[in-house]
């Protein structure tokens, strides 16, 4: 008698565990569904026009800074060595070269960043197909 009761109790427990697992699974499904509903759509660009403007300004400043620093170094050396204005002319050119190099590097980094952002959703999408 007692054994049978125990048996039924265990069954009861087993059934409870089963239903709990079932309920957990369905809850998990619901959660995943809700999450996918609230997830931001893999839209075109996370940043808007303001960010683009910032990037453009960044490139412009990079170029001007090169010329300015080159010119300043040349002017300072000229004053030091008394060779005005030759070194300033030379260093203005070198500064422009440095500025262009900086712009290219910055643009490359921006491109890489944009690429990594763009790649992210496509990687996540892969399990669809």
């Amino acid at each position: 008698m007692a054994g049978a009761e125990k048996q039924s109790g265990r069954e009861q427990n087993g059934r409870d565990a089963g239903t709990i697992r079932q309920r957990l699974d369905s809850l998990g499904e619901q959660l995943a569904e809700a999450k996918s509903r609230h997830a931001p759509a893999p839209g075109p660009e996370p940043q808007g026009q303001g960010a683009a403007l910032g990037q453009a300004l960044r490139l412009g400043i990079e170029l001007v800074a090169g010329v300015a620093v080159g010119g300043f170094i040349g002017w300072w050396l000229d004053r030091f060595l008394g060779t005005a204005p030759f070194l300033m002319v030379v260093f203005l050119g070198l500064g422009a070269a440095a500025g262009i190099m900086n712009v290219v590097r910055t643009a490359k980094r921006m491109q890489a960043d944009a690429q990594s952002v763009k790649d992210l959703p496509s990687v996540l999408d892969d399990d669809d197909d």
Partner: protein
Amino acid sequence: MIDAAYAAEGAGHGGGAAGGLPNPMHQFEIKRLIPFELFGFDASFTNSALFMLIAATLITLFTVYAMHSRALVPSRLQSVAELSYQFIANMVRDNVGTDGMKYFPFVFTLFMFVLTLNMLGMVPYSFTVTSHIIVTFALAAFIFLGVTLIGFWKHGAKFLKFFVPEGVPIVMLPLLVVIEVISYLTRPLSLSVRLFANMMAGHTMLKVFGAFVVALGFLGGWAPLAFMVAFTGLEILVAFLQAYVFAILTCIYLNDALHMHHH
């Protein structure tokens, strides 16, 4: 004499000059709150210093108060503090690597300071400290010096190799090294000018359009007012973005100094 110049500037603005628009640059004026001289240098406590003090106090209060409960399930304020920690920690880890986490406190402080100063500048009647090139240049110069010292401290004289591009014919090398050095020296300038120019241009624009609203009156003033509302939103974005760019470029420079990766 400087005081007289200040007074003249103030008077020129005071009545809107000759009935024209108010001077949009008036908002950037430095005012001495507590005149003070140190060894012949003017070390007065100015409105700029006041706002830096406010920013430092706000950051300290915010971080200390937000984390005071140290709850496992964070409150809203604690989440904000943890989010900002995470944000910068990830930035440092992604851009410098795990051995760069030593410098996390510096980058976090820098980001919070610049962000708070930028955001404080968005409050009407306040003062935007980051719209002064000398402030941003001082920040950038310290970053530049610190990063260069870290580079030499980590790699010794080998750090000079950073200026020597690889795979270049020996004839071209002197020219390219000079260009590389100039390019390295532009860092403090471009870093400081970027922040300063963004903040100053935005605030000047806001002031100019604010003057248009008043000048055009009740009938015509709505168009510039609508523009100003949109522009204020953009300015808040710029305030955040520039603090972010300032911090991330600091990380990139740190990474160059620590690992000498050539870009």
